[in-house]
């Protein structure tokens, strides 16, 4: 794992940069696709539990520094997704080689659907009660579709980054 910390951290920072430079400007139906959530999810599905949690934390915290939403919320959602995905990943569910082609995209779509909901739910704990008034449903729908489409290539990238250390966990 230690050998992978540096490549995973660097890749995660690139993912954050891609999010901020490209995906945050490319709005679909006014909605931003959150690849900073998809990336740790893919790491988790690739079976890299600790690294998925680490990348979730890094991606979330660095993204949060650029957003005016409560600090730490994106990280919290990313960690939750990474944990859930890694539980599945450790059981081999969503494995790109052994599972049916649609399993990984479907899991990702489910995550894309609930992630904005978790975000808004968690915002109540930061005493912010207004976020739900925004486009919650569109955010859920657009992220679900985008995660479905991007799940396989991103999980493949996660597996490749994981293989840089020589073994999978």
């Amino acid at each position, binding site marked *: 794992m230690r050998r992978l910390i540096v490549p995973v951290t660097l890749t995660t920072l690139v993912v954050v940069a891609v999010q901020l*430079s490209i995906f945050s400007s490319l709005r679909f139906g006014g909605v931003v696709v959150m690849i900073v959530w998809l990336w740790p999810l893919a790491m988790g599905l690739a079976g890299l539990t600790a690294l998925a949690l680490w990348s979730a*934390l890094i991606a979330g915290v660095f993204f949060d520094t650029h*957003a*005016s939403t409560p600090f730490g919320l994106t990280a919290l959602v990313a960690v939750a997704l990474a944990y859930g995905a890694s539980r599945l990943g450790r059981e081999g569910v969503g494995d790109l080689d052994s599972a049916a082609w649609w399993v990984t995209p479907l899991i990702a779509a489910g995550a894309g659907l609930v992630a904005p909901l978790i975000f808004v739910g968690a915002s109540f704990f930061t005493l912010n009660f207004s976020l739900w008034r925004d486009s919650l449903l569109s955010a859920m729908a657009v992220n679900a579709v985008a995660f479905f489409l991007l799940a396989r290539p991103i999980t493949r990238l996660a597996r490749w980054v994981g293989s840089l250390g020589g073994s999978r966990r």
Partner: protein
Amino acid sequence: MATDRSRRRTWTLSVAVLATLIILYLTTGVASGLRSGANLVVTPFSWAVNEIARPAGHFFAGTVNYSDVVAQNQKLRYQLGEAEQRANEGWAYARQLQQLTTELDVPFVGSLATVSAQVTTLSPTNFAATVDISKGRDNGVLVGMPVVANGGLIGSVIGTTPHGATVRLISDTASLVGVTFASGKTDIVVAGRGLNNGLSASSVPLGTSVVQGTHLTTDGLNGGLFPAGLPVATVKTVTLTPGAATYNLTLQPAADLRHLAYVDVVLWEPSP
């Protein structure tokens, strides 16, 4: 056993980090310091990605002079917005003249200094309607100052750095603007409903003469967050729930919040 222990350690670490984050958030001073520090780390990566993505994007757009056309378009939108703003302000001037009371004491954007700035980035998330602009503390931009563009009020400054600032748009769900209509006889509060949903107002008294197309401007009440007379919105729909004692309004922002390229920060600070 060892796996259990390492898993427990990972979890303890994660919980501790998250708890720290929450504490940092609650103590905003530390959080803003952390934001600035983390910004410095991500900036080189963003720059590199931008350098790669921008030419590719232009290539896919398929036009040789795409950037020039976009820049020109933004500038024209800005000029059009300024013209619209002047037209809207004319209406507010007429209303003020009718009042013939204490208008000499009411600050108004026409007599206030402004700082022009370029919009550098839009909010990167779905849950905040903000924009970053290219002028900051070094140019006199301070937290709380109103920002106008494209024909009306677009928001207020919520954060500054020496060379930049963050503006919360009036459509943000956390935004509240005190407005007035009907020749200043009625004051209500306009709330943001998110970048894609415009504005709304509730608890509008039944006796008021509010119809579709009514102009709303900032009320400039003593101690308010905005100077008087800035165009905010026009009434789109008026609804009355059966049995309710007040109207609900959906509003169209006076400024086009979706196409912001240049803005003017009004150098006006809310009175304490």
